[in-house]
């Protein structure tokens, strides 16, 4: 038995991982309609109610993922807007031709990843009937294959690059209706898939980082939710599991560890089940009579509402359902995951009973009624008849798989680095051609144009600005990482201030101001340029730059106004001279007594009066001239 210890020998277990990255593109229009690619928080102007039915194949077979979704018989409500979204998103108008801007960004990425571009792009329909796509399918097409990437752990093949549409945004679920917003539906996405050759979490991180760097060199969206990562994980004897929504690359190692653990535990459970000759009966039993007077609130409530209390027998499963497969999650949690998809809140199982108001006496009665043997277990569900039945059928299906091993699944990454069941792994068979969109030839002219205009990769960019502007390694790195190189170059060109000063403000000062709670992200570049111009013209001192920006942000005014308000504007030479003449005149006695020896004390007086408004060197020079003039 393998303990959940810290040191897992991934290689020995045959861990294989593949990465799937989804990146939103920052195009002007959506992939198949002219709507803008922006999300909105505005209240929807109207809602569209829809159902989805899977279309069957010639064998009477439906894709298993699609089929399971359809069993839930969900109603979907789509938030729509007369301006922000159009009839294409609500599936009331055929798609417009493929967005050429998105295609070109895809070709740029394909080229940067050294991939082979297809000669003709075919838009496909991938059946997805969880409501996230109004048509019941996601439009997607394969743009390029077979790129590669070198990592310290070895070479990774980039298998596929697909151009596809993003799904509608899930807003919640109410009374059996799942609510989506149409704003996100149709935003162009690139899907980049690696081969499943990675065997260490660090390698996955490195690949994700490198792909991220390539993506960021082109017109992609930034910020939360604009890039999504899925991870394929399998171990020898285990099964391929696709973990959706790995948000944080830092917690990925723990996630991999927990998933590997889960698969190992499931294999242990399989071995034990086989040893016991475990068997899942197909029968579903009605326990309504036995539990009609139960104190269990959940069951009593279900019965009161006209629901049913149903049960199944899992022969040979006793003790294994309560077995932990991930920290805080049991094999029973896995079974419950399947049941919940059919709409029940949860299941009760032998290994946790008596509990939840179900007494030991009741457990005995049930055991007797179901003829439960020493190693046998039962599962109990209380809900509307059809829902309860569907849920138990799902549990039976999942329990049977347990004797075979680990099922292939799509799972969702949880915040605690565990994963939870989402749906079966979709089969390749859910693809068919989108007949509403003509195939698109990728001409050699287009490819050549793309190749001739490739963007600078981050590393190239860094080397260039070090070279061109004499910036330090650290400053350049920060500018590249924070994606401020373009801004930096524009400001330097616009104000003529020494590049390091500009770079340091962009890389560090702004970060500090943001930390102080100022809305730095909406500061227009023109105000940055204006502030630096004041510096260049000698109107403010270098020390005042940060204060002026604070003034601009707080009062929402121009840099000049801010500098004036804060009394940070430098005085003109004439004004400074006037003040110095005055100082010298009012200290006449000291000047006559000490001659040039009065320089020191008078400099102190002058600087006190002119602090931040005049350059010290100038004050010094003028004071010296004035004393000399006076002595003459």
């Amino acid at each position, binding site marked *: 038995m393998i303990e959940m210890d810290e040191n897992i020998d991934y290689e020995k277990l045959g861990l294989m991982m593949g990465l799937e990255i989804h990146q939103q593109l920052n195009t002007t229009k959506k992939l198949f309609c002219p709507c803008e690619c922006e999300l909105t928080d505005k209240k929807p102007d109207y809602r*569209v*109610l*829809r*159902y*989805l*039915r*899977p*279309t*069957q*194949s*010639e*064998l*009477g*077979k439906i*894709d298993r993922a*699609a089929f399971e979704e359809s069993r839930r018989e969900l109603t979907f409500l789509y938030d729509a807007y007369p301006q922000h979204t159009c*009839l294409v998103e*609500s*599936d*009331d*108008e*055929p798609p417009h031709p493929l967005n050429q801007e998105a295609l070109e960004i895809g070709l740029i990425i394909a080229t940067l990843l050294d991939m*082979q571009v*297809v*000669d*003709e*792009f*075919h838009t*496909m*329909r*991938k*059946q997805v*009937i969880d409501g996230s796509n*109004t*048509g*019941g*399918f996601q439009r*997607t*097409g*394969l743009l390029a*294959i*077979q790129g590669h990437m070198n990592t310290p752990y070895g070479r990774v093949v980039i298998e*596929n690059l*697909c151009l596809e549409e993003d799904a509608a945004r899930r807003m919640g679920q109410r009374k059996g209706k799942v609510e989506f917003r149409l704003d996100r539906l149709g935003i162009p996405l690139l899907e980049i898939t690696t081969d499943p050759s990675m065997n260490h979490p660090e390698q996955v991180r490195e690949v994700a980082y490198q792909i991220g760097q390539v993506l960021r060199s082109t017109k992609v969206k930034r910020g939360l939710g604009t890039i999504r990562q899925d991870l394929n994980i399998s171990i020898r004897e285990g099964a391929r599991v696709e973990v959706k929504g790995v948000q944080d690359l830092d917690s990925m190692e723990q996630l991999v560890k927990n998933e590997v653990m889960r698969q190992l535990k499931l294999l242990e459970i399989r071995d034990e089940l086989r040893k016991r000759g475990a068997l899942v009966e197909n029968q579903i039993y009605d326990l309504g009579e036995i539990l009609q007077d139960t104190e269990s609130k959940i069951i009593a409530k279900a019965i009161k509402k006209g629901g049913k209390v149903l049960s199944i027998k899992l022969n040979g499963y006793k003790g294994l359902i309560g077995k932990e497969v991930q920290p805080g999650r049991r094999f029973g949690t896995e079974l419950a995951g399947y049941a919940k998809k059919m709409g029940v809140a949860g299941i009760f199982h032998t290994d946790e009973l008596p509990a939840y108001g179900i007494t030991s006496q009741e457990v005995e009665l049930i055991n007797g009624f179901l003829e439960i043997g020493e190693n046998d277990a039962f599962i109990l569900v209380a809900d509307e008849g059809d829902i309860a039945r569907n849920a138990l059928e799902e549990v039976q299906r999942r329990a049977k798989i347990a004797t075979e091993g680990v099922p292939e699944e799509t799972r969702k990454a949880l915040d605690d680095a565990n994963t939870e069941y989402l749906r079966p792994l979709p089969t*390749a*068979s*859910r*693809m*068919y*051609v989108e*007949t509403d969109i003509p*195939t698109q*030839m990728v001409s050699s002219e287009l490819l050549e144009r793309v190749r001739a205009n490739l963007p600078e990769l981050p590393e190239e960019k860094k080397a260039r600005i070090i070279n061109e502007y004499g910036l330090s390694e650290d400053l350049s790195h920060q500018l590249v990482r924070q994606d401020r190189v373009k801004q930096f170059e524009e400001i330097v060109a616009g104000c003529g201030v020494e590049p390091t000063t500009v770079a340091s403000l962009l890389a560090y000062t702004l970060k500090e101001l943001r930390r102080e709670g100022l809305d730095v992200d909406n500061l227009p570049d023109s105000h940055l340029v204006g502030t630096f111009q004041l510096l260049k013209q000698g109107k403010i001192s270098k020390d005042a730059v940060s204060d002026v920006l604070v003034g601009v942000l707080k009062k929402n005014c121009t840099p000049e106004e801010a500098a004036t308000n804060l009394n940070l504007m430098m005085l003109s030479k004439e004004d400074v001279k006037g003040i110095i003449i005055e100082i010298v005149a009012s200290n006449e006695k000291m000047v006559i007594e000490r001659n040039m020896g009065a320089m020191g004390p008078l400099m102190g007086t002058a600087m006190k009066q002119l602090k931040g408004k005049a350059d010290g060197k100038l004050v010094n020079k003028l004071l010296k001239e004035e004393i000399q003039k006076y002595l003459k």
Partner: protein
Amino acid sequence: MSYRGRAKQFLESQNISIGDMISIKKNGTEYRGMLLDRAEDADQMHIVLKMDSGYNVGLALAEAEVKLLEKGDKPEINLPPLDIHRDPGKMDVSIISTGGTVASIIDYKTGAVHPAFTADDLLRATPELLDEANISGKAIMNILSENMKPEFWVQSACAVADEINEGADGVIVAHGTDTMHYTAAALSFIMESPVPIVITGAQRSSDRPSSDAFLNLMSSVAMAKSDIAEVTVCMHPTENDNKAHIHRGTRVRKMHTSRRDTFNSINSPPLAKVKDGKVKIIDKKFAYHKRGECQLEVNDSLEEKVGFIKSYPGIAAELLDYHIDKGYRGLLIEGTGLGHCPDHLIPSLQRAADEEIPVLMTSQCLYGRTNLNVYSTGRKLLSAGVIPAGDMLPEVAYVKLVWALGQTSKLEEVKKIIETNLKGEMDEKSSSKYFLRDYGE
């Protein structure tokens, strides 16, 4: 296969056919997958491959090294027949398909979409229909609705009549949406029916999970079981999948190129709505023919040579002359406003009248009725023998003229038929409720 020219030559020379697994090497990269057929209108330079991932890609044959890996079976759809027993407790509803694909089956192996034509196909795709009625189905033709012709209206009417004669309690006609309203009007005039005749279709093809076909079909079955023995159109009234509207066949028109709620009743409220399988009359005062009130009758003689002309600012009289010269037996004009056309057409209209060719005047406004007494042009048109069509839709008036000319060739009798309300296609009264979807529901 649909490959042509160079691609076809190449594939034949390599003994590669559709369904075979092949390998294509280009610039050091290998693509493996199944050869798929190519659209007939596509170029000859590429072949289509379905990769293991399910994606199709097009690959140029130039500079490619192609190898046959394994011969495949040509994908064929072969489904076992269904074994369905008639439930005597349920009503019998027949579904006649004219080519609109209310149900489809996807061949996942190739990704091809096959329309479901037979009753079995239909029931496989929508088994829920059997909960509502005994369903029998027949595909009588397979044409796109834009290719409909008056002779196909007759064919459809006869097929519907056959079903009724064989005991159907209601008949559903699955139809493409483009000209559904013409067929609805045609069946209205051709047939006297003791049972409901419901025409339905889909704005989103049935190969997609979001298709409106399912709800339209289920609602049509409910309608076919109702006591409204008229020719009606059953389609979505909103963008939502929660109910259907029943439009009288002589009052309905397709009003949007793509929306699900494209069909509207014009100059009239819809007859009924169907929600959760229940048919509810919208306006209780609205009279309709009830089940069993009349005997089945088919008056299917039509005159196909009827011209349909839209008046517009640049129209020339020669357009009318052409029709008269070519022996057209009737003309339908979609006039402007209250029912006008430029007065320089009047000599040609007079000529038509002299040759006993009925000329009907409708309005391209669609909403409202013609009135040729208000302006001098109108009065001149009346003197030239033009017959105003009142609040009849242009398409309906056209179909009515085609039918009327089939019943009689005498101008006076045609005029009388046109001016008589036969199937609810006209009404003396205009209501403020009838304009642009304001049904006050």
